[in-house]
């Protein structure tokens, strides 16, 4: 029973790290319509930068500054945000899918860099000994698991409140206006590139933060954790939960992570060891098909975007909702 409790705490902690990443993607895609296919790369940057800042020094590797964890997490987020800023500056003036191609390329190069810059990233062996939050409690497994979960609940809550506040602010309304009708928003004097760049960078910061948190809970990171399948998982989480809705992003993350974990353990329980790699690829096929099916059948996800409901209200009582919108 106690085991089950600490497993549930561990499972939820991991799910919530995905929720943070998913919240970042929701700002980029759900609110702004920016298609980032390199999520895994930005998450990796967050995780590695935080790990390098906080781990004890190791011979033959640059880094290992033993800084406090908060510095590591913020540093990881900043690094990912700056990277987004660079890629966004390069592509956001061009056609919308150039960003997709550029982020895809960035993720490929980040993966290469993780593998080959051994002096910084540890190469294929990764970085170990990443400090875990409340490491002093490690003796008591349950308390430790619950403390970690608490850290993650607070992190998700902070991200949620901050992003929700941003999205409800006039700034957030400009983002949605640009997404829905760029010409109209432009006519109102809003520069689309500036707003999109800001949203892309802030989303990148949140993703990096999620990556950093993930690295610290696992305690070990390696290039293999950041393959395109991670990008895909986060996307599925957002689409299933309902893109454009911050609560949907969190719900989707927990739900899809649960499905992933259950189907993963089903694969290892049902298939003999030599067939497991094959079965795992079938698991990805099914998730891929599921994503396409959701796009076709229920593009708004489980929790749709709140804004579309509001727009419907506007049609019936324009004046009242106009008033509430400016107050919100």
């Amino acid at each position, binding site marked *: 029973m106690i085991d089950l409790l600490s497993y549930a705490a561990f499972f939820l902690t991991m799910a919530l790290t995905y929720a943070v990443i998913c919240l970042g993607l929701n700002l980029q895609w759900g609110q702004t319509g920016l298609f980032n296919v390199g999520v895994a790369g930005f998450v990796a940057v967050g995780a590695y930068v935080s790990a390098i800042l906080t781990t004890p020094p190791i011979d033959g590797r640059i880094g290992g500054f033993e800084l406090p964890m908060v510095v590591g997490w913020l540093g990881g987020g900043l690094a990912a945000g700056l990277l987004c800023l660079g890629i966004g500056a390069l592509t956001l003036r061009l056609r919308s899918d150039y960003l997709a191609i*550029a982020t895809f390329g960035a993720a490929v*190069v980040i993966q290469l860099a993780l593998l080959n810059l051994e002096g910084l990233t540890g190469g294929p062996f990764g970085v170990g000994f990443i400090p875990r939050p409340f490491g002093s409690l490690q003796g008591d497994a349950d308390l430790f698991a619950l403390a970690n979960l608490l850290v993650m609940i607070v992190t998700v809550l902070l991200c949620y409140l901050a992003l929700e506040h941003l999205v409800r602010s006039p700034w957030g309304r400009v983002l949605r206006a640009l997404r829905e009708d760029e010409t109209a928003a432009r006519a109102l004097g809003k520069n689309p590139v500036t707003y999109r760049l800001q949203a892309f960078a802030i989303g990148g910061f949140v993703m990096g933060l999620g990556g950093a948190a993930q690295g610290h809970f696992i305690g070990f990171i390696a290039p293999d954790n950041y393959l395109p399948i991670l990008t895909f998982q986060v996307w599925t989480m957002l689409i299933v939960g309902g893109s454009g809705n911050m609560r949907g992003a969190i719900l989707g993350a927990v739900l899809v992570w649960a499905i992933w974990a259950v189907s993963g353990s089903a694969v290892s329980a049902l298939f003999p060891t030599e067939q497991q790699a094959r079965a795992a690829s079938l698991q990805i096929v099914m998730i891929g098909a599921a994503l396409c099916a959701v796009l076709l059948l229920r593009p708004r996800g489980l929790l749709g975007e709140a804004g579309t409901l509001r727009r419907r209200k506007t049609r019936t009582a324009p004046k009242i909702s106009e008033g509430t919108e400016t107050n919100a």
Partner: protein
Amino acid sequence: MMLQPIMDGLVNGAIIGLGAIGVTLTYAILRFANFAHGELLSWGAYLALTVSGALGALLPGLGTPLGPFSFGWSVPIAMAGSILLTAALTLAVDWLLFGRLRRSGAVTIILVMASFGAALALRNLLEFAYTSSPKYFSNALQISREILPGLRATPDQLLVVALGVVLVVLVHLLLTRTAAGRSMRAVSEDPQLSALVGIDTRAVIRMVWVLGAALAAVAGIMSGVVVQIRPTMGHDLLLPLFAAAILGGIGSVPGAMLAGLIVGLAEALTVQLIGAEWRAAVSFVILVAVLLLRPQGIFGKVTA
């Protein structure tokens, strides 16, 4: 001594160029970046492998190497079969996924995302069916011959380059000299206007898929002949394909081929000068350089 990487670059560049033609056509006419195009190369190669394996088992004579090449008649026959099957596969994916999204009025980016999902499903389906271990069309070893002083190539490699050139010329003629090609170019210019003057847009879309799939299948098979067949081969080529399509200018067939050769040569030189481990970064560097300096590509129009 600098000639050898040029040969390797040309062989790879021809493969990238053929794949990039499909990417550029899909981009220009269907108006989205198709992340599943790389998987068409892999599927083309595996479908050909299956057909040639079956042929070889039925009629062992077909497996005897043809002249100087490493493969027998089974591979060219399998190529024809694979082109048909790969084209059928893309039409099926379009019918199941992209066509429905188009009709529901989905924005570009939803199509891109759907292609991303389709790519993962298609790739892992291959991995499930054939496992991730590399496969080969033939076990025959080829000895490279000296063509010029300091330049060696296997007959297979020369065939790949020649086939690449022939196909580019054919596709270029198809687009510029035939009614079908004219309607394709019209749709890429202005879909609404071409529908208005009586061009069957749906037929044009089918043509784009079939043409792109056929070229992808040939590129995948050629890559399988000179290197090996792996489920991730198309995914690994995806970034070079995009880099070539954008460098060549979206919609330009000769541009895609020329840019494919440039990407292939740049990769070969990187392997020679910096190291093989950074090869995959070359396409990204080229991509970034093009986006910074000339986003419309070599042959692209400024508005593209």
